[in-house]
């Protein structure tokens, strides 16, 4: 008796340790051939790490990978390709300056005489792949001119061109329109029939239930559920995803909300190629309130905060701080009016890595220590003030003069928070405040947020972590496709919030 879907690849006791965090804690994973294996879990649960291990991008710290019963070593991307494993990353790995065909065959160009690129063979093969994917994309167009959805198709074609027996799709539909999703599903069914084992990662639960054959749920680096898809429903997935005993960050006292401190009206950010990344969004925050803005990848949350912080010159909309219109068009002006942003990407946006901890904390509020026409810095006052914030936020450091890059993620995040607080903000905008920090530091960051709110600060935080938004917010707004799709009081049911965030696109943005 043979199983309908033999196990093609399996991981036993997979452990992956990064400096500071354990991303995978002893994972047992079976990948079945000729079937769609869906993988679900919150951001940071370890899905991407697991897939990177299979695709040879990262190596396991401990544990064993075997294929068809034989132990294998997947030490590099090329090992994985040789074993027939293809992966389509969430972030596209394409070259916008090259043509579609060149992208598909990058580093594997068909050659004549060993050095002359056979451009015609390359184009023909690319055209055949595009036909198979039911897309009318000319292989000779430069990739940069394609829409994101089409680029995703090219990425899939690239994996197919390598004759992958195992194909990993990491959130392939996040950038696709509804009709493109249908095409992708047909391609997946076709591949399945050919015996290809597919791993499918997505946040869209309805989608998973529709096309999945087997489901694996990850939470905090461990597998909390793995079974065949029959009988799986959304509540089961949500339970496995966030657990029964939700991590709590209880409020110590009842919240006292003051007057409205921040209001955004009709904020719009046009998207290249039509449509809106932020679509006529309005919201308001009161003093002492923690407003959680929940949404999946690509919902436009980060872009909304960037609009507020004057990062998109093409954005339109009106903002009010404590009822007064915000007319300043540059970041410095907006900071002076009481806005402060804690960006999502600490490394890229939040910190100057090579500067010291002290210099980072005081960077936004430096003029406070300046005398004589902002020329002479009072270094002693600066050091004292930096130290004061280090104490208040319980940042663990050896010396404020060490470079900020030597700190752990959680302490770096507190430095960013310190920098924002030093400007005496009226409203704090936080983009994924717990990204890339461990559980302990997370709890401390959340306690800090609660304390700040209790002191009367308005906090607007954006997250794609359901647990977090449920536990922390006084009020929850849900965003999808650039629009608000739901508003919930604190203590809302997780399934409702997810449903609002995954609401099907009303409009098809396909060209």
């Amino acid at each position, binding site marked *: 008796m043979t199983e309908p879907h033999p196990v093609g690849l399996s991981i036993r006791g997979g452990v992956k340790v990064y400096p500071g965090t354990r991303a995978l804690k002893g994972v047992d994973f079976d990948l079945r051939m000729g079937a769609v294996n869906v993988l679900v879990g919150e951001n940071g649960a370890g899905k991407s790490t697991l897939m990177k291990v299979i695709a040879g991008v990262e190596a396991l710290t401990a544990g064993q990978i075997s294929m068809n019963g034989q132990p294998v070593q997947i030490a590099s991307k090329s090992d994985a390709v040789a074993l027939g494993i293809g992966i389509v990353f969430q972030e596209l790995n394409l070259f916008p300056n090259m043509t579609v065909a060149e992208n598909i065959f990058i580093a594997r160009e068909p050659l004549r005489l060993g050095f002359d690129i056979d451009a015609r063979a390359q184009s023909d093969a690319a055209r055949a792949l595009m036909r198979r994917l039911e897309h009318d994309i000319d292989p000779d167009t430069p990739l940069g001119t394609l829409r994101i959805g089409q680029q995703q198709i090219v990425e899939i074609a690239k994996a197919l061109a390598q004759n992958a027996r195992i194909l990993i799709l990491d959130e392939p539909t996040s950038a696709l329109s509804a009709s493109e999703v249908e095409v992708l599903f047909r391609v997946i069914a076709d591949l399945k029939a050919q015996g290809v084992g597919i791993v499918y990662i997505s946040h869209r639960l309805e989608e998973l239930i529709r096309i999945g054959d087997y489901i694996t749920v990850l939470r905090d680096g461990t597998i909390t559920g793995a079974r065949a898809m029959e009988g799986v429903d959304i509540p089961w997935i949500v339970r496995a995803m966030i657990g029964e005993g939700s991590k709590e960050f209880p409020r110590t006292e009842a919240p006292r909300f003051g007057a409205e401190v921040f209001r955004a009206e009709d904020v719009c950010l046009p998207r290249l190629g039509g449509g809106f990344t932020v679509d006529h969004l309005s919201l308001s925050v009161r003093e002492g309130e923690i407003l959680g803005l929940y949404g999946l990848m690509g919902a436009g949350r980060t872009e909304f905060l960037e609009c507020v*912080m004057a*990062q998109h010159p093409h954005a339109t909309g009106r903002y009010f701080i404590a009822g007064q219109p915000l007319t300043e068009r*540059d*970041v*410095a002006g907006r*900071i*002076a009016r009481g806005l402060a*942003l804690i*960006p999502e990407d600490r490394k*890229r*946006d*939040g*910190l*100057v*890595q*090579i*500067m010291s901890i002290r*210099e980072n904390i005081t*960077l*936004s509020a*430096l*003029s406070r220590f*300046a005398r004589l026409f*902002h*020329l*002479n*810095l009072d*270094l002693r006052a600066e050091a004292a003030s930096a*130290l004061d914030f*280090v*104490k208040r936020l319980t*940042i*663990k*450091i*050896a*010396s*404020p003069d*060490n*470079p900020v*890059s*030597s*700190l*752990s993620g959680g*302490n770096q995040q507190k430095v960013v928070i310190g*920098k924002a607080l030093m*400007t005496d903000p009226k409203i704090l905008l936080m983009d994924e405040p717990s990204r890339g920090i461990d559980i302990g530091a997370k709890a401390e960051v959340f306690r800090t947020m609660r304390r700040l709110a209790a002191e009367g600060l308005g906090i607007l935080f954006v997250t794609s972590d359901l647990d977090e938004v449920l536990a922390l917010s006084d009020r929850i707004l849900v965003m999808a496709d650039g629009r608000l799709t739901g508003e919930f009081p604190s203590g809302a049911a997780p399934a409702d919030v997810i449903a609002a965030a995954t609401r099907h696109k009303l409009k098809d943005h396909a060209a």
Partner: protein
Amino acid sequence: MTAIPAPRSDRTNLMLVVLQLRTFVALILVLGFFSYAAPNFLSAANAVIVSKHVALNALLAIGMTFVIITGGIDLSVGSIVGLCAMVAGWLVLNPVDLGIGYSVWFDTAEIAGLVALVGIAVGLVNGLLITRLAVAPFIATLGTLYIARGAALLLSGGRTFPNLTGDAEYGTQGFPFIGAGNLLALPMVIWLLVGMGLVAHYISRRTTLGRHIYAVGGNERGAALSGVKVNRIKLFVYMFSGFCAALVGLVIASQLQASHPATGETFELNAIAAAVLGGTSMSGGRGRIGGTIVGAFVIGILGDGLIMMGVSSFWQTVIKGLVIIAAVVIDQAQNRLQTRVALQQEAAIGK
């Protein structure tokens, strides 16, 4: 928070100190070597001569250091030197027709002011090209390198302005003093270097402007999101660099009492070399004015010392190149060591 002394071995500690002071160590080494190998090298008279040579490059390098700290580069300084020397020469020799019926002769102070403005203006053009039109600094300043050099040539039709001795009738008799005069037994150039060095050091260490310059070079996006006015900072550094170059042009015209349109060719490369030798990172965010000045001295002493030893100038060029590369290699080593030490410190208290 209490400062917890982290355990680190004395050897790493010592290594780090030596590496941090490497430019200084290099300076002492070249000084020691030449005072042994070249007789008369360590005399006071020679020290003044060498310092005069070094001062010009050091002045340019000070401006260059700020530019490089912001992550940019200024290739136009050599041409600005030439242009400013020519403008100074022209103003000494010619009256300016202001279009109000009669011409005006400017006196020394006015000439110095106008020349400084020319340098600042070219710097402003660089800055505007880079901030408003988003031209890469390398390209923008390469363009102004050619433009300023061409302008210098056009000003005299390629000829030299000779005999800039000044004329008491027009108030320019003091012109030669700028480059050739002495104050308290030291040449004016050295006072100029001391003055500019102190000002630049003060800006870099004790002002918001200085801190913002480092922030822009360390992480431009992050700095902008923290409210740093990135464009203004960039405008300043290019204008400051232009100002430094103008001073050098003025000094050279006055020293030689003549100005030639080719003045300052390849000066920009020496200035970059001094900054890099002094520990300025080409990727931005790191560098010290003191280090740059010491770096300029190392290059200058190396050059003059080798001449006194009678080494061929061809070999001098090779040796200069080797020293610059060695400096950057050591710089990388220091960075790695420093990062490791800081990580160990933080890890020690993270437990």
